[in-house]
């Protein structure tokens, strides 16, 4: 342990090993993922988000929604996600290929939003909820959102769907 170079080389090796073993290998396996049809010859999924939803994603980011909402559905048997209607199947890497910033989140103070578009209220109700949440729901009021940002955020939330069949997670018939 006397030799500085030995310590530096060893530390470098441990860091590099974990990095290449995990991150680079994952990049090799998943880095070339693209969209895929849900059935032979069908349209490609995930679908591209409408422009308004892409603006809404920045609103979602800058309000820090990701602090309390995840966007990932765990498989049946690992948590109650599917049983409680967060999704019809587990999330897989391919579901996120179109997202420039992956917002899978780490904490669920509120419900998961991976499939929110499939179960959301109407645009008007959703915008009203964001302004003044229903009583009894521990959600902050976003009354300060102007109409433009509110519309974009609602469009983004409505665009969130993972209810198509994916090669890695087929929907059960």
């Amino acid at each position, binding site marked *: 342990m006397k030799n500085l170079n030995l310590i*530096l080389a060893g530390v470098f090796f441990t860091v590099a090993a*974990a*990095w290449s073993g995990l991150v680079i290998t994952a990049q090799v396996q998943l880095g070339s993922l693209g969209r895929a049809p849900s059935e032979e010859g069908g349209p490609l999924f995930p679908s591209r988000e409408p422009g308004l939803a892409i603006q809404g994603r920045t609103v979602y980011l800058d309000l820090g929604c990701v*602090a309390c909402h995840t966007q990932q559905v765990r498989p049946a048997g690992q*948590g109650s996600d599917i049983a409680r209607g967060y999704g019809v199947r587990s999330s897989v*890497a391919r579901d996120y290929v179109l997202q420039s910033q992956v917002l899978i989140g780490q904490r669920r*103070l509120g419900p998961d939003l991976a499939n929110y578009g499939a179960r959301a209220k109407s645009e008007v109700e959703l915008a009203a909820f964001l302004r003044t949440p229903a009583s009894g729901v521990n959600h902050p009021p976003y009354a300060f959102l102007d109409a433009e940002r509110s519309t974009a955020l609602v469009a983004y939330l409505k665009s969130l769907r993972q209810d198509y069949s994916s090669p890695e997670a087929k929907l059960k018939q």
Partner: protein
Amino acid sequence: MSQENRTGRPRGRPPEGGASRLSRTEAGLRGPFLCFFTFAVLWLVVASLLALIAAVKLHRPDFLGACALTTYGRVAAAAQDTFVYGWGFNALFAVNFWLMAQLGRFEFRNGWLATLGGLAWNLALTYGVVQVFRGELGGFALLDLPREVGPVLILAFLFAGLWSVVTYARRPSGHNFASQWYVIGATFAFPIVFLLGQLMVQWFPSVGTVPALAHAWFVQNLMLLWFGASTLASAYYFIPKILGRPLRHYYLAPVGFWTFFLFAGWTAPAALLGGPIPIWLQSVGVVASVMSIVPVIIVGINFYSTLSVDGGWSRAWNSTTLRFVTVGVVCFSLFGGLSTVFSARDFSAVLAFTSFAQGQQQLLTYGALTMTLFGASYFVLPRLTGSLWPSAKLVHLHFWAASLGLLVAVVASLAGGWQVGHLLADPAVSTAQAGDATAVWTLAGSIAAMLFLVAHVAFALNAFGMILASTSPTSEGRPD
């Protein structure tokens, strides 16, 4: 033991007389150390204020809810960033630096270079936190500062941190000590990790969930290789130093060091169990988390066997520094044990996405790291300033408020997460219902945040009082 007295009250006296005894090694350190330390304490107070606001917002969502500036997401992100990058890094720059210079007998002449790095670090961080409040935050915790801040932070780190490596390379004697390995390892590994993390998450994010994995890898390395290793460096120093006897089973320390570095990075995917990454990656994370218990056991053997003989525990209790450091060491072991046990899939299925992980992380960032850094401050600051801690009562208040806050915060996060997780295992229970049923833990979180604020204000008052009262020491002091 100048820091002991018979009644067991910490008095906080400078261990070796006054300024006249400042060694040349310490004289060269004084400027950069006090610069980093001042920034660290300021950030600590800011961070605890923000954390208190965030904690209150968890049970009163409309608190400060009238504008976008103070959404929970932004305040919580800012609180974490200021705590980690503001307090944790600045304090570690100071303490690691001091450790390396002391152990390597390094007479530091170009202090302004490190100070320059420190200024750049804190300017960039301030800019980043302001941007977070303006809504320019990313979606990944601890990599959520605007990406243009990152390169500045790395450069500043190289200026401020890598002096540790220089002090080791230029040390006059051929001897070496565990603290030095850990500081060198941490200081060398972190810039690499920081660079790769920023590149893969912020600058050139890959497709799918690879950025999420890269982020988990970054956070694990930051927590273990930088915070964890630095905690161990201080603990390895202060325990034998203050007890006045060598560590027992010290020959195991290199094994602990290498296994610690070997497994740390691989544990990353355990944070993503059940998530959208291939299961082999998740399983690797579980295995690495379990293997990580080996270094935890080894450093535990080193520390506890040394503390257990010859009245070590009571002597630790009677020394202000060692009292904090011992709490830190115990928290580190607890953290290691919890990460091993709760990496199991059966647990993560229930506890994922709850506050449980936050409680574990708090054990490391606050319980282990911050408590150890407090202990180090009580040791180093009187030596460098040449004055006494102004108020023993504040020292007392600091220790008890911080320890109690730590206990309440960790228990609230762990128990709250446990309860929420088990409630949510039933699909009929909504997140809102689970939140209501566990409101008492959220409230406890706010109380803990309040205790932390009290502790940190007490610490800051005491520290700044001492720095302001310090006489300017000469470098012609005691030859060391």
